């Protein structure tokens, strides 16, 4: 028989048990968002292909053809798509999970469940998009008859890193958004500028050597470089100090994000 015991000022010990009990909700909330997303659209799921395709074309033309950025022998579209995979996932995940609590404020103020589920399930939804884009990537590699190097075996590590970064920052934004709706304006800003500040349309190698460490403070630099290195290899070397900084930063963001979220979660219903 389950039992609830709540005392003022004490953190609930049963939180993690609740998270387990409500585990199916991860699935249901993601399922809901996926179902709803393409309702009343004409081409439906095709949007998941059209969006990355168009972005890839634009970035290839702007950076590769007009900007004449170096590609190190890799076909430029592959280079771009490989950078877009983690970036699109990350940017979609942080905006969706950042908005998740406010968008579902009626749920937050009327029903109990660990709110963490709401923010994390938005990341799951973005991951489905990531998987679709990954299929697209596979197709493009076949088209260019490009065989991935052995380093492709390290890809799961970089995917995990991208997930950790998304969850960490998503939790921070979601919790802050409950109190400060300013983040509704800040997040699109981050996403828009991040696309150009992160090495999505170009290789991070074009950044002058002396700015390299400074540039690595953007955690996405390590992740995107990692994706390129593991999927494309060749000229796309991994810059270890940069990766180290990314891993460290992401660990700090994730842990502090969970802690901050847990601390403020108790008052979400009062503030939202």
């Amino acid at each position, binding site marked *: 028989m389950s039992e*609830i015991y*709540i005392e003022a000022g004490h953190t609930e010990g049963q939180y993690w048990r609740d998270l387990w009990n409500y585990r*199916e909700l991860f699935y*249901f909330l993601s*399922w809901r968002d996926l179902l709803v997303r393409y*309702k009343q659209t004409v081409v439906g799921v095709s949007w998941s292909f059209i969006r990355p395709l168009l972005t890839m074309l634009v970035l290839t033309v702007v950076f590769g053809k007009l900007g004449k950025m170096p590609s190190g022998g890799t076909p430029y579209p592959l280079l771009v798509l490989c950078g877009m995979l983690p970036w699109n996932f990350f940017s979609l995940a942080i905006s969706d999970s950042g908005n998740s609590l406010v968008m579902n404020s009626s749920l937050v103020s009327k*029903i109990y*469940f660990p709110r963490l589920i709401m923010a994390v399930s938005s990341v799951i939804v973005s991951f489905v998009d990531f998987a679709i884009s990954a299929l697209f990537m596979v197709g493009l590699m076949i088209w260019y008859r490009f065989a991935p190097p052995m380093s492709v075996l390290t890809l799961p590590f970089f995917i995990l890193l991208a997930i950790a970064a998304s969850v960490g920052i998503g939790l921070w934004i979601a919790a802050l958004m409950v109190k*400060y709706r300013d983040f509704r304006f800040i997040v699109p800003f981050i996403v828009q500028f991040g696309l150009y500040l992160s090495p999505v349309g170009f290789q991070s190698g074009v950044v002058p050597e002396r700015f390299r460490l400074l540039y690595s403070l953007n955690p996405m630099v390590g992740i995107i470089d990692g994706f390129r290195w593991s999927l494309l290899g060749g000229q796309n070397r991994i810059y270890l100090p940069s990766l180290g900084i990314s891993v460290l930063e992401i660990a700090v963001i994730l842990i502090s994000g969970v802690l901050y979220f847990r601390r403020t979660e108790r008052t979400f219903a009062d503030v939202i």
Partner: protein
Amino acid sequence: MLIKDMPQPAIVVEDLGKRYVIGRQKQAPDGMRHIIEGALRSPVAWLKSRRDARRREVDFWALRNVSLTVQQGEVVGIIGRNGAGKSTLLKLLSRITVPTEGRFRIEGRTSSLLEVGTGFHQELTGRENIFLNGAILGMTRSEITKKFDQIVEFSEIEEFLDTPVKRYSSGMYIRLAFAVAAHLEPEVLIVDEVLAVGDAAFQKKCLGKMENLARGGRTVLFVSHNMEAVRMLCQRAILFDGGRIRADGDVENVVEDYFSRLSTFSARQFGNSGLVIEKVALKNDAGQETRQFCPGEDLIVEIQFDAQKILEKPYFILVVQGKRGNCFTANMQLDGHRPEFLNGKGRISCRFKSIPLLPQRFTVQLAMKASNGKDVLVDYENVGSFTVTADLADYGFRGEFQTRISEATSVVVPYEWQLPDGSSAIVSLGAPVPTV
């Protein structure tokens, strides 16, 4: 019976309190821009303004010192006027928000239904929403699959299962939402005011379902403003007022208490006229204060006032209201009698002669107008309530449908039937008919 075999109480609440901080949002917007900009422009002034903002904060205890125990299988009505703290209690027990002080323990799987249809998504179909809503309320997928047919049957929306709920009528929407919640089968069910929505037939169905749950040994906490529903469903009720428990016990007594509180008048000044109504008393023939009357008794309404300024030629208006609206009135704007002036303390009373009222609950309203007949001094305030109780048989009433009719009508003036056979019958609530 061994102690360990004794059923543990389902809910134990000790000294529970919830404090809200109000007042800050209005004066100092807590947005980022404000904070950053203010802090950058002039740090000292900013710190001061933050401190002032803190000072302007007002603590508001929505709930305080609440302790209660609910045994397993009990159905408890939580009543009280708006803002009494009922919903805060339910929010705490449902763990939507955390208490500021105190503690509570709930034994068994708990589900709460604080609003019908939360978690429904407009774009999804009825079928999809059953699963989604069920999961949000805490059901597992296999449970939902198992109960799916029952839920559909209860909601009566079979043909529209695959239509998005945004195309539903509000009635269908509510039926579906309640159907999902009603099939949770938790050990402890917390319900807030779900009957406020929907038509009579739906309400009846919901009440029936909740009765079933109760009979099945579930513990139910039921918040409602519908006293009939509370009476029907609960054996015990708890009355809240001002964030505290004011009464706890047998449902009939507590509901009675609720009604009398609802219309208990406490001394207060009205507007800037300097008029204080100190007390309003209801008295019977013998001049005793009471809340219980028999049909045919006199009802005396006595108003004690204190006019701190001289008040010339005011109008007094008294209205006796039953369940279905106004029954009768004593209105100086109608009859033209009025005092020359009110000055200082004094009293005015009105005797309603042999009230021809059927057994029911009534409230008394007081209104006062200034000498010009327009300016409102007192605006139809509830100043008292009373119940008329009687066995109508004592008055010579022999009909078989008395209860039903006395629900719909309140006043019976004396009348006389002339029947086709020439006989006649006089009917009156004036006084009990002596039995021969």
